[in-house]
């Protein structure tokens, strides 16, 4: 009886967990790299990284279809290994990562840039290489911001609908995430089921906001100290 709710919930949890972990590392790496990168393409790269925020999800979905389709460059590449990601579970992860990445990147970068450069300089004169300096000074000092960025990415990944539907489709138990399930329940006139699914998403989002507020307060505290 609970199956119609458990299935989309478990798909969403799997997708969002994997997507958040990938976004976390990808976003931090990109942010760290861009803080130092002073090359001539720096603004261009920044724009490309932030593009998914301003594009409608359907545009992203369509773009990904072109990219991963049978004739797309990435689709052809995957075909060499006899796989395709269109209408499969990994597609939900791909779209979630792409829409969540800009939030992670942008927020983490802001956090890194706020760390007093003299603290980083002090670490350098004390013999620390750039790697050690990042792990022992920059990251710990921007940790609350990084955590806030992770919560934001998590919620964005959870809420992804348009691009997911276009690239992953609606295959119950495989690619039907919570937002997709709500849409199709509503289409089928199953108000009660749609409402229950909505409540599940609502609880998730609320918990994330509470976490976010907590990390924000923590970040302010650090800034004062």
């Amino acid at each position: 009886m609970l199956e119609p709710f458990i299935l989309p919930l478990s798909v969403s949890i799997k997708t969002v967990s994997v997507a958040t972990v990938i976004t976390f590392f990808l976003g931090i790496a990109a942010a760290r790299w861009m803080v130092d990168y002073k090359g001539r393409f720096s603004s261009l790269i920044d724009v490309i990284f932030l593009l998914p925020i301003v594009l409608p999800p359907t545009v992203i979905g369509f773009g990904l279809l072109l990219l991963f389709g049978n004739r797309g460059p990435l689709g052809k590449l995957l075909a060499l290994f006899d796989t395709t990601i269109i209408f499969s579970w990994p597609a939900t992860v791909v779209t979630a990562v792409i829409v969540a990445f800009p939030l992670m990147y942008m927020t983490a970068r802001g956090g890194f840039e706020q760390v007093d450069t003299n603290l980083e300089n002090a670490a350098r004169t004390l013999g620390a290489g750039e790697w050690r300096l990042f792990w022992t000074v920059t990251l710990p000092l921007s940790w609350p911001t990084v955590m806030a960025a992770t919560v934001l990415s998590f919620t964005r990944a959870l809420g992804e609908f348009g691009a997911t539907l276009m690239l992953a489709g609606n295959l119950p138990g495989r690619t039907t995430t919570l937002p997709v399930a709500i849409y199709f329940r509503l289409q089928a006139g199953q108000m009660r089921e749609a409402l229950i699914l909505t409540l599940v998403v609502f609880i998730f989002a609320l918990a994330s906001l509470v976490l976010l507020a907590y990390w924000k307060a923590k970040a302010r505290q650090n800034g004062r100290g």
Partner: protein
Amino acid sequence: MLEISIKRTLPGFTLDVKLTANEEIVSILGPSGSGKTMTLFCIAGLIRPDEGLIKLNNRVIYSSEDKIFIAPRNRKIGFVFQNYALFPHLTVAENIAYGLADQPEKRVIKKVSELLEVINIPALKDRYPAELSSGQQQRVALARAIAPEPEALLLDEPFSALDAYRKERLEYELLSLNRYYRGDILFVTHDLDQGFKVGKHIAMYDNGKIVQYADKHQVISCPVNRTAARLAGFKNLVEGQVVAYSDDAAEVFIPEFDQNLTVIVPASMKLIADQAVMIGIRPEHLTAVSQPESNTVCCRLDRKVHGVTTLHSYYHALNDHQQRYSLECRYLGVDQDLSAREEKTCYLYFNPQHLVIIPLG
């Protein structure tokens, strides 16, 4: 030994300095924006000069010619930042141990407790920087910088955030540091008194150049030009012309005062007849007397300003040209006679012992 010769050009500012420090404390003195901090950042490798050469104990750490730029972490140069830059998320002990990452743990513990003794705060080792007073923070920053035993130590205005009382104690502590730390120390300050107390040599900075670099006694007794004289505290500076001279003294005609002044000339200085010179005297050494004597100038008091322990008074010389030339006196204590002298003519005594003479051109 630290040998520096660097150039760095920014829009509207050029840093161009040569400096050598030989296992001693060198005070870098100058107004803000004169390139003092930039020099330290170049030496530490935190910014890259446009050209030049930096050698530390005969090891080239930067050379534009040979395209050598040793990374800051490999330069073995300690740095105490103006705001101390203590890691806020690490304890005092962890801060001090940060530069000892490559050493075995036993040695790190021993070294840290040793340094905590030296800076006299062993009980605070588990506190965080925000829980320390600024004086304690400064000492932690110092301990952290010398922990890896750097070959040179750079101090960027380490006392600027402290109140007067703490400042004096810490100046004393910095001087006694010599017993613990041996190596070149560059000490940046904008305070003449502080630079003189702490350093053995003084490098006078102005607008990206070194105006004078010499033993501190030389710097405060024989400034080489107007800028150096101003930086060394000679607020009263007038131009004149040598009219007569002997081995150890000279008569100088001062058009501003319309009279001659006698100046004692250092043995090393060669003067010629009619030479244009500049005469300088500190406000503390200029005294007002009521009767004309030798080397006095007739003046009138313009205004006076009371400080806590000092009295500044401003005069102008009376002469036939009716030109107002302002002179400043500073007395320790409040001079009682002064009120009686207001709006009256008095005489300022230019003590030849305290006059400096600077050849011009």
